[in-house]
């Protein structure tokens, strides 16, 4: 599982794609859900980087990262099966999945019950029962990595920052609500100086997008194509300023 291979140099992998196809794979974003699907979703590994990151795309993606993202995608399909917006996640500590979650907004009628919030609550409940103090819980979160199929929204990104999670890998970007670069960048640590006494104002976390983005998008696309039965009646869009 720890084996790594480099996207740029691995020649065995080259046979599977052309550069043009790679270009098509790279920017999957929510507002394009109505556009025709990409030719195929052959290679989840390739959707590692968004266009803006391509130049610096020399880092290796580990098989481990993909394996955990596959588990997150599985959670998303579980959401889909329950007529929920298909987003799923897993939280990993020391190479081991310690919590998973999927969207439950319809079932709970609580639109804040995103996959991330579900998984976080699983952990908090568990650690509380184990009698961990807040400092211990904070220490735990600082060792956790989240794998989620869609960029965390502003709410979830704020939550992950408040909890002090170590790292986040996501699938597709979220052009409407994304809190990790798309709309706000809550994953970046504040440039404000630390307060004396060690109380940090804001904790940042490392965030990498584009892992298995095509799988994440195709799930979302098929969900919205079948129609979200829970969406409100069409309403007038906000007035555009001239």
């Amino acid at each position: 599982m720890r084996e790594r291979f480099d996207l740029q140099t691995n020649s065995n992998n080259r046979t599977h794609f052309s550069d043009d196809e790679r270009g098509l794979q790279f920017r999957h974003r929510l507002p394009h859900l109505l556009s025709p699907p990409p030719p195929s979703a052959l290679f989840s590994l390739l959707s590692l980087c968004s266009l803006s990151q391509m130049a610096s795309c020399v880092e290796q993606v580990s098989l481990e990262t993909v394996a955990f993202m596959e588990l997150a995608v599985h959670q998303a399909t579980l959401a889909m099966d329950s007529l929920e917006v298909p987003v799923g996640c897993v939280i990993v500590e020391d190479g081991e999945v310690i919590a998973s979650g999927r969207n439950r907004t319809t079932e709970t009628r609580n639109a804040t019950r995103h996959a991330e919030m579900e998984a976080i609550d699983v952990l908090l409940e568990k650690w509380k029962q184990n009698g961990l103090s807040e400092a211990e819980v904070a220490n735990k979160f600082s060792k956790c990595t989240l794998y989620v199929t869609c960029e965390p929204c502003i709410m979830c990104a704020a939550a992950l920052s408040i909890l002090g999670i170590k790292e986040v890998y996501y699938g597709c970007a979220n052009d409407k609500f994304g809190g990790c670069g798309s709309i706000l960048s809550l994953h970046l640590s504040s440039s404000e100086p630390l307060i004396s006494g060690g109380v940090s104002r804001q904790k940042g976390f490392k965030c990498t997008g584009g892992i298995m983005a095509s799988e994440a998008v195709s799930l979302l696309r098929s969900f919205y194509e079948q129609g979200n039965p829970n969406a409100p009646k069409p309403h007038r869009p906000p007035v555009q300023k001239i």
Partner: protein
Amino acid sequence: MTLMSSKRDWEIVHIPEKPPIPPHQQPTVNVYAALIDPKHTNTLVRKLNQIAPLENLRHVKRVRKQHLERGKTQLSVILCLACENGCQQDSIPNGVLELINSYQLSEFITKVCKFAALSKEEWEEQCKLWPTSYHPPTYNIDGITGFSEEDSHSIHNFMKLTVDMAKSGDGQVVNAAIIVDPSTKQVIARACDQVRSQNPLTNQAGVETCFFEQQEAYTCHPIASSVEIHKKLLSNPSSAESRQLYTGVACLYPWRWAEQQLATCFRHPLRHAAIVAIEYSAARDRHLFPAIGHTGSNSTQMDLVQYSLSGSPVKRQKTNLEDVQDDEKLDSHINGFHSESVRPYLCTGYDVFLVWEPCALCAMALVHQRVRRIFYAFPNPNEGALGSVHRLQGEKSLNHHYAVFRVLLPAEILEKEEGKTIVATCDDDNNNTT
């Protein structure tokens, strides 16, 4: 009682989607204008709109009416744009020159505001230069153009209830949230912060004092500059506001949860008042409008079993909802969707009252839950997401936009009154809000 006497001073201020530009700093453009004979107004405006339409100044009114002494009025009209630095007459289009000649107009250069007003206050200032029109951006939300006396009264009462809740705990003042259906003036849900236990151990006091000193430094930090406008609004800023830090308020110090060393105080770092109130309102929704045989989710059905044991399905309470259309009935081929079409969708149409401006976590949660209006009393210079640090009501990409208002309250209202029983309690498990 101090609350009553100060109540009539409570002002409700709309917090717009963009930071308001101070009126005297609003950019202007030069235009040629001329006094006209009122009987020529229609003809001139029609001709000018053809010859020299004001394409990029649609918010500017073509004609200005000025009131003179003894009830007399005078009209002037905008002829065309003028260039910005020392203009010659040759910048006036020929068609306009012809009108000037044939109607014997004497043109002069004046300034009009370049951009449409974003707030009522901006608009009022603009009109001092030359009248403009003002379209509230969130045009379909009540209150942006002002509140009726009745609405105002009701808003004050709910805000007072929220403040009382925030002070009701044994420990520090916390944030509180109340979700209200304004059409029925019914409280849908209410909650206080549940990040820490409401009954902190006594030896925690030392930790608190220590924090008061540490945090002092950065309340004066430049990040608070965006709140200058708010401060200006508060005509008489009380010393209590700057002295007190309210470290128990989760939205003011969202990262502070991890500093506690005592497991006994530990609740949940994300259970800010607004998040908890949303959870209660969702629980109420599930209780009042249980889905019938919702397919596809076992846990939903377990949920239903629980609720059907606890009580019979409650008939829908709202009468102002549209009746189910026949074709919708046909469309609802999946059981359960029929009943869902009559119940409210999340918190659509509801108002939320908060003592402090919410952080990004809570503000975005309130977007997701589709609330219509947010009222808060005190800005949050540390983490506020409705104008202080971020401004979610102005993020165009979001799929929902609420209107945001600040209810100006004297800071003394937060001071705990010793030995006084406060009626509103903040019961942790209080979700029976019917």
